[in-house]
């Protein structure tokens, strides 16, 4: 950058989340067609903490074409730390615990996380993990089953 002297511009949490929200709001323009996300309750979330997301099960997997709902929590330490995510739709996946929580360390997301990563990146990682060869054929609960 000109005259920037190698400045590392850090986007504060709220501004980063507002940008992410904007991207999610534009009817998903710029997002992969198989995922979406937004604030869970814009009326009652001053801190932009609670989000919801959906992933469309990848083709060629036992979750093909299923709409999978997730809740996403961007805590105070986001984006230094990745969001906490859990499936609401019941799924049988090795990186998902009994209560729907996603083990981001098992996905490698926790280790590779950088502060310029986003909710979109986290959802994308989950999507691609579903399509892994050792995961794609796992038997799944009936459609409509939920964790909550």
């Amino acid at each position, binding site marked *: 950058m000109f*005259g920037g002297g190698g400045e590392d511009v850090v986007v504060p949490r709220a501004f980063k989340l507002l940008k992410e929200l904007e991207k999610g709001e534009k009817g998903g323009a710029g997002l992969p067609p198989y995922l979406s996300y937004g*604030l869970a309750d814009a009326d009652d979330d001053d801190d932009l903490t609670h989000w919801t997301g959906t992933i469309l099960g990848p083709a060629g997997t036992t979750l093909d074409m299923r709409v999978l709902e997730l809740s996403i929590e961007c805590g105070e330490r986001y984006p230094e730390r990745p969001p906490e995510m859990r499936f609401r739709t019941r799924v049988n996946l090795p990186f998902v615990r009994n209560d729907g929580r996603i083990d981001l360390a098992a996905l490698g997301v926790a280790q590779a996380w950088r502060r310029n990563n986003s909710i979109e990146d986290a959802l994308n990682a989950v999507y691609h993990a579903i399509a892994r060869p050792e995961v794609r054929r796992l038997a799944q609960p009936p459609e409509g089953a939920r964790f909550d």
Partner: protein
Amino acid sequence: MADPAALPRRILKEAQRLRLEPIPGIAVEVSETNLRHFLCVVDGPEGTAYEGGKFKLELFLPAEYPMAPPEVFFRTKIYHPNTDKLGRICLDVLKDKWSPALQIRTILLSVQALMSAPNPDDPLRENVAEHWKTDERGALAVAREWTQKYAM
């Protein structure tokens, strides 16, 4: 972490001037950890529904600044047709009317002016704008109520 030497000179100069010549009715504080991040408090303009309130705003200068405008939003809840429930602000100088000749100072003054002159014809919150257009007295009463509840 926050090394002033790494900042573009323009930003340093603006911050310095804000410190030496404060804007009446607007307090501006630079974040200790991020010199592009400003925490502002705008006094509700006199004679408006926001009078007596202290409205917190956050302002951030993106990497592209000053070619791109500052980003600003209200931290304090405000009942105003040109803001949304997250505090985002619809203001031309923050969008297509931005020019690098403008500054943090001019932006904050524009926000203050917007508080004095709500524009329900260019709304960000349809229902609030509708309230303004059909029952301005009622809308102003709610705005005053919110000022007391959230900004005092």
